[in-house]
């Protein structure tokens, strides 16, 4: 792998940038692998990287039906935070935030992690109570989260309108300073590059169409649009298409897939210092390093695989943005798009073994799994390598729905982020 450093950049600058090599090998499927990951998003590529780097499994492949990072990884608004309510979630998301903090160095790839602070606005008494409860719970489990008055919120984010003459006045905010954003594509590319260097095959334009089982019912291989590949272990990280892929092995999970949308404005000079989320009125916003305002809307009300979403959902979000940040009223929006997110009944993910031997699943991240990419990939790799969950993902089973041990983060995650 060609290392990135000040020296290599300088050398290429003088060499006319002609010496750069492709970031990952363009692999063709082999007849057999020790393990296969279905889905080349950040979660799948990350799992492959950790399987190779930490568990010594290098004869493995990531199979992606389109191009890597073309799913939700490349479509999300990149908010990273770990101030979820329950201990199980706080552990999982904080594991991830800790990995984000060193990810650029570990991968030798700039994922542009920017802990600029994530502020969640409270607009009514219920919000205030819920956020304060979160703050206390987070502090008890060692996760930073603090309460701000409206004036403190405005000091942290000057464009914010804290006037009381708006429809949903700001009554305060919860701030996680370690939260922030990262560059979505870089996460996929950085993991792909590092995994490929360790021998992992990244196979793009290859859709999985079937999962083969042996006489005992265990995983024996996969059928793809580029032929059959033998393997004893399959890890599914297919986000919105998890139900479809798991259905190939007859496994049904409590998931529903919904469109979720985002949009960006024309680029402007730095005007917005942090990330602001408003769960109650369904709007969240940050500014990318390119200068675009990145705005997220809520998900559609009905399950769908259309990957576009309804127009009036965006209009609703923009109305809220214009009220909270009047300075942005005249900005033009450049692009909008949708992704398909897989939602569980308790809004917590499933990272677990399945009833089929050799089949593992990492899904149910719904509207908020980008922040979890490194942590989830890390514990998913452990689960696949050891055929046992890591202590951090042990509570995130399929059986929790049967046993009534839900990890109900609906309050923390009901809005898209």
């Amino acid at each position, binding site marked *: 792998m060609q290392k990135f450093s000040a020296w290599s950049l300088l050398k290429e600058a003088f060499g006319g940038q002609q010496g750069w090599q492709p970031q990952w090998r363009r692999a063709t499927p082999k007849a057999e692998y020790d393990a296969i990951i279905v889905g080349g998003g950040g979660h799948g590529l990350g799992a492959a990287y950790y399987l190779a780097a930490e568990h010594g499994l290098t004869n493995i492949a990531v199979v992606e039906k389109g191009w890597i990072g073309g799913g939700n990884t490349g479509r999300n608004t990149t908010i990273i935070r770990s101030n979820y309510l329950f201990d199980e979630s706080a552990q999982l998301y904080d594991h991830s935030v800790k990995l984000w903090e060193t990810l650029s160095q570990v991968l030798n790839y700039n994922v542009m992690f920017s802990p600029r602070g994530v502020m969640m606005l409270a607009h009514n008494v219920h919000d205030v109570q819920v956020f304060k409860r979160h703050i206390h719970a987070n502090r008890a489990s060692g996760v930073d989260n603090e309460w701000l008055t409206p004036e403190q919120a405005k000091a942290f984010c000057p464009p914010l309108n804290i006037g009381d003459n708006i429809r949903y006045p700001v009554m305060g905010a919860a701030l996680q300073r370690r939260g922030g954003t990262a560059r979505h594509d870089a996460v996929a590319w950085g993991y792909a590059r590092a995994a490929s260097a360790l021998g992992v095959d990244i196979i793009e334009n290859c859709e999985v169409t079937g999962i083969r089982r042996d006489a005992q019912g265990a995983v024996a291989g996969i059928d793809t649009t580029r032929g059959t590949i033998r393997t004893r272990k399959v890890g599914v990280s297919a986000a919105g298409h998890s139900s479809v892929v798991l259905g190939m092995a007859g496994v049904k999970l409590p998931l529903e*897939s919904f469109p979720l949308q985002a949009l960006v404005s024309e680029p402007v000079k730095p005007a917005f210092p942090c990330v602001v989320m408003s769960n109650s009125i369904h709007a969240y916003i940050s500014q990318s390093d390119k200068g675009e305002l990145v705005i997220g809307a809520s998900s559609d009300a009905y399950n769908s*695989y*259309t990957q576009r979403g309804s127009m009036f959902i965006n209009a609703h979000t923009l109305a809220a943005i214009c009220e909270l940040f009047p300075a942005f009223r005249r900005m033009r929006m450049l692009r909008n798009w949708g992704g398909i997110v897989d939602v569980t009944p308790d809004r917590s993910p499933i990272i677990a073994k399945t009833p089929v031997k050799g089949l593992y699943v990492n899904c149910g991240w719904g509207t908020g799994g980008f922040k979890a990419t490194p942590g989830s990939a890390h514990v998913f790799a452990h689960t696949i390598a050891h055929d046992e969950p890591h202590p951090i993902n042990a509570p995130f089973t399929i059986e929790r729905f049967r046993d009534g041990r839900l990890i109900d983060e609906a309050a923390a995650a009901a809005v898209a982020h």
Partner: protein
Amino acid sequence: MLLIHCPYCGQRPELEFRHGGQAHVARPADPSATSIDEWADYLYLRENPKGLHAERWRHVHGCGRFFNALRDTTTDVFVSTYRCGEPRPDGGSAR
């Protein structure tokens, strides 16, 4: 915005309706005689098809009534709408 055909009022804009989740989900008649797995399925497991989906809708800002619809989740096209109590028109599985 979609136009949805309410079996009672006719074609109306999507904003007048509320989605009610999967249709034809029957509560087990005798919960105490139902296995824990069947009960979990009843509570949490929903079909999530990439294709035809039988689902409930309610015309909240209209007649207020519930009805069922068959919608293709790859296009959002409504194939048909029908009254509660009527069977799924395509004869598909009604779990």
